[in-house]
């Protein structure tokens, strides 16, 4: 049984983010601001075809252009043309095509890299691209997943003999159990393709530093540590000679959880040319060359008794890999695999996923990575089942969810949810939403045949995050672990360095990590510097993604800070001539119990540790401590999100009128940062439901690869969200925290879509495709009416 506690601990203060002054006043250097003497700028010739043979490539024309230093196609690059790695071979027989940094003889998607030119300024490099001579012989493109896996399909990679990347199965037993069911509901949901569209375009600079053998790479990445290892592995640059720095990074959403071919090229060419090389993508490049997200066809079947008790769930996915496998492309759908049952109890669960190659930009992690897809499917199908049974959708959920007294609970998918209280979050959300009032309004609009219909969308979600227990990752064939590291150092002046292996790109780690260290060290937040995202200064870490930074990295900060206090206590006791147990540690000062006049502040202890003139025997000089934490388990934030959706049945236009979310993210270190993460996440999930969707024509040409047609909502498009939290502390980590980086994006998409369907279900509608554009909604209504 989980007790509910409030969050009023020393950690829970909503203090303003330390990093914001620098970010908001433009007083930081993004990667593209880095100007090193002698830099050459790289520009990339990209394929205009989705699938074509390169029949002729001559880069020499570019060499004749002003200010050009070098130009390379795959032939000229030779051995330096390293392949982009995939680190998650999900099955033993997974098909992994070669993915060279520069395409060798065939291009496989629009935006595929064909050649590069390097010039002493960026303008000359771009101009010189036009002087290259290249001929293509267009091949038939494969865009649609179902046709890609049907017999006789054109192959994306001829040499592989198939467009199927892998087939993954979990469970079994559904077909037997379903016999006990009274009702079976099947739906096909489409989780469309999305583009991460972070604000700061990707940028990378690599430079031989000239004072050692070191090559330093600055790059706009979420994963400097993993990148260092992978760049070393694929390029042959000795890992010890490679330093990777992610300066302030302007957003990632998974899109910068990657080793990109451009990073490999810049590293190789800096080494080859012996001078700094720089590349910054244009927005047009970003839309086709940064990995995309989602893109799944979800065939979902749910079975229940007539009283609503769930019997089982069957999931059959087709997941679009795109043209190549990037870092964890095949694993993304499997991150959702365990979460299809959501918060519900059931007796059977079958899962199958088929990874499919197409001539499209590769897909990979995008905010939520796998869990938004699973949450969408389960929360949508629960509404469909409720409609089939004639039950109130919240009632159906209540009947089936794990009761708060049943935690810890092992789900049918095999995960053990540690804590949660769905009743509490739901009760609070219903109250804030005025659920009954809106249901009454909905009824009266229906009865009067109002042009504008109202729907209520529910999403009672949970997700697994805090990636991840290393053994679990191993069992899933992921090639690395999920631990996190921290070193805490008190400098001789009393200032503190918290050196973390997480790599923030907007989340506010500098503030939150300072708060954790401050709460243990008793040192003011201002006197703590968080050092991160530089493998030279913070050598150990597994970086930031999967809502892991606090749930995993935060624990390392706590542990290292506590170890540091332990060491300081021994030194202070020696100085104060008492035994360590006789010391209290209050607000950063060691005091002798019963004699508080006899005291030594942590700074003074640090100075003693630095001079080492008077240390107890066996104690090493300097005051630092480190901790490397492997999490025991995932964390499972949950929440209840409710959306009031208005649908103009005459035009199909949808308006989000009210959005309430009550999230349980366990103990909060900084509630203001939590609220910010929830807001951004909710907006991003709404964007999937209503605005975003990358599309291709049948030749594989992107149809909306620009920000004029790929619509991203902005503040005027969204109402003020009403947010609140409940707190059931996680028991899988000592701080009791759960991740929050992805929760909003996971929860909000089904809430919006359930609301739209609820508004027009009486017209005969039982699904609406995303994004729910006015035309899509209007056409859906027309079709349901039996019109055209």
């Amino acid at each position, binding site marked *: 049984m989980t007790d509910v506690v409030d969050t009023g601990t020393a950690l829970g203060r909503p203090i303003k983010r330390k990093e914001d002054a620098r970010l908001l006043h433009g007083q930081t250097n993004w990667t593209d601001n880095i100007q090193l003497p002698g830099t050459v700028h790289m520009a990339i010739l990209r394929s205009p075809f989705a699938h074509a043979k390169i029949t002729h490539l001559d880069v020499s024309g570019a060499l004749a252009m002003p200010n050009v230093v070098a130009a390379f196609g795959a032939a000229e690059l030779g051995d330096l043309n390293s392949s982009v790695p995939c680190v998650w071979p999900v099955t033993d027989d997974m098909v992994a095509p070669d993915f060279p940094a520069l395409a060798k003889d065939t291009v496989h998607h629009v935006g595929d890299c064909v050649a590069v030119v390097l010039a002493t300024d960026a303008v000359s490099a771009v101009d010189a691209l036009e002087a290259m001579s290249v001929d293509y012989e267009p091949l038939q493109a494969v865009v649609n997943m179902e046709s890609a896996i049907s017999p006789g399909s054109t192959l994306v990679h001829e040499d592989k003999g198939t467009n199927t990347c892998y087939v993954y199965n979990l469970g079994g037993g559904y077909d037997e159990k379903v016999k006990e069911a009274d009702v079976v509901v099947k739906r096909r949901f489409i989780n469309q393709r999305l583009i991460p569209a972070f604000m700061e375009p990707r940028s990378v600079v690599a430079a031989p530093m000239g004072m050692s053998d070191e090559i330093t790479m600055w790059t706009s990445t979420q994963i400097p540590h993993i990148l260092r290892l992978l760049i070393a592995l694929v390029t042959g640059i000795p890992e010890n000679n490679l330093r990777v720095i992610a300066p302030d990074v302007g957003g990632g959403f998974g899109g910068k959880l990657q080793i990109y071919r451009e990073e490999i090229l810049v590293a190789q060419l800096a080494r080859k040319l012996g001078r700094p090389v720089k590349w910054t993508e244009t927005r047009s490049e970003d839309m086709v060359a940064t990995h995309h997200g989602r893109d799944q066809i979800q065939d979902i079947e749910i079975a229940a008794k007539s009283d609503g008790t769930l019997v089982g769930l069957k999931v059959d996915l087709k997941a679009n890999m795109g043209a190549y496998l990037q870092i964890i492309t095949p694993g993304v759908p499997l991150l959702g695999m365990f979460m299809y049952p959501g918060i519900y109890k059931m007796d059977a669960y079958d899962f199958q996923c088929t990874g499919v190659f197409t001539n499209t930009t590769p897909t990979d992690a995008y905010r939520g990575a796998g869990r938004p897809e699973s949450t969408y499917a389960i929360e949508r199908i629960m509404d469909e089942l409720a409609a089939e049974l004639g039950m109130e959708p919240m009632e159906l959920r209540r009947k089936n969810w794990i009761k708060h007294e049943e935690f810890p609970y092992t789900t049918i998918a095999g995960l053990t949810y540690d804590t949660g209280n769905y009743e509490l979050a739901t009760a609070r959300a219903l109250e804030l939403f005025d659920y009954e009032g809106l249901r009454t309004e909905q009824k009266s609009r229906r009865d009067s045949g109002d042009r504008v219909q109202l729907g209520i969308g529910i999403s009672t979600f949970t997700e697994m995050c805090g990636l991840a227990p290393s053994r679990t990752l191993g069992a899933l064939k992921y090639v690395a672990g999920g631990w996190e590291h921290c070193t805490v150092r008190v400098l001789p002046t009393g200032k503190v360095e918290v050196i973390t292996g997480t790599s923030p790109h907007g989340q506010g780690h500098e503030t939150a990590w300072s708060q954790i260290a401050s709460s243990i060290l008793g040192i003011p937040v201002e006197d703590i510097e968080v050092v991160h995202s530089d493998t030279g200064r913070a050598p150990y870490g597994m970086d930031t993604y999967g809502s892991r930074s606090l749930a995993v990295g935060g624990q390392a900060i706590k542990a290292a800070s506590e170890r540091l206090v332990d060491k300081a206590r021994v030194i202070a006791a020696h100085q104060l001539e008492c035994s360590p147990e006789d010391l209290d540690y209050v607000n950063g000062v060691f005091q002798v119990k019963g004699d508080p006049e006899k005291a030594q502040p942590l700074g003074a202890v640090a100075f003693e540790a630095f001079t080492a003139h008077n240390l107890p025997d066996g104690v090493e000089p300097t005051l630092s401590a480190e901790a490397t934490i492997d999490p025991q388990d995932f964390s499972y934030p949950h929440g209840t999100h409710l959306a009031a959706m208005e649908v103009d049945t005459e*035009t199909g236009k949808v308006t989000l009128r009210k959005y309430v979310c009550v999230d349980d993210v366990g103990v909060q270190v900084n509630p203001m940062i939590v609220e910010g993460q929830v807001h951004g996440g909710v907006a991003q999930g709404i964007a999937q439901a209503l605005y975003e969707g990358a599309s291709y024509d049948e030749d594989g040409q992107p149809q909306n690869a620009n920000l004029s047609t790929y619509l991203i*909502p902005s503040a005027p498009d969204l109402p003020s969200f009403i947010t609140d939290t409940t707190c059931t502390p996680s028991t899988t980590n000592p701080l009791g925290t759960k991740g929050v980086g992805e929760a909003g994006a996971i929860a909000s998409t089904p809430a919006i879509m359930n609301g739209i369907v609820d508004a027009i279900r009486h017209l005969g509608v039982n699904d609406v495709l995303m994004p729910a554009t006015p*035309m899509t909604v209007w056409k859906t209504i027309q079709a349901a009416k039996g019109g055209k």
Partner: protein
Amino acid sequence: MIPVAFDYKKASSVQDALAALAAGGEDAKLMGGGQSLLPVLRLRLNAPSVVVDCSSIPEIKGIKDEGGKIVIGAGTTHHAVMNDPAVKSSLKVLADATASVADPQIRHRGTLGGALAHSDPRADQPPVALALDAEFTIAGATGQRTVAAADFFQGPFETAVGPDEILVSVAFPKLDGWGGHYEKFNRAAQAWSIVGVAATVRMEGGKIAEARIGLTNVGGTPHRASAVEQALVGASSIAEIEAASMHASDGLSPFADEDADVEYRLHLARVLTARSVAKAAGIS
């Protein structure tokens, strides 16, 4: 997103601009606020050898109330147009349409003349100019000429302004006492119109006495819904407005895109025309 190199000339007068255009020949391009031109250059869809900046020519900036008409210099920004008291009171539909363009930053740079001369089928102001029978003053080597709105818009991105000419001003007959509304239908606050309807009506005794209707993005050029204008005369109820608005799709052959296929666009033209007229007429 780096344009092909071009020469830049800042013109100080209309004569100066015309001379620069003549000197630059076919590859010269005028620039107003640059809000449509620069994206085109950055995407390398166009590569003029010289860009003649006419954003600082005093003669083509500003708004004048000339009794029966309001004359707006081509170089007047959207921001200035939508906030001008005379425009707000006598040309409400123009103020509304202008306020719906893009976002504040763009409205502070983009110009009415640039928007009309660019003649993007999705642009919000051209149908207003068409419906209001605006008159365009164009300067060229041989002096100035005026062109009626009906002859100005000739195709997508094609107008009566020749490559060696400059649009100087646009005169709108004042519509004092008329109700006006611009109904913009788009997917996000800062997105272009899928369909837009400019409506302005004169009421007499609770009935529509006269109406002017222009539609955005239902064809290659802005569309004047003359059949609706005629059918609306005498209308005093929503039902009558809706019936008249059924003519909004008469004679249209719109294109299809991701936002709307032909059927949906025609449907929107009818529905939004009725809504725009009802709001302009104050009938609900």
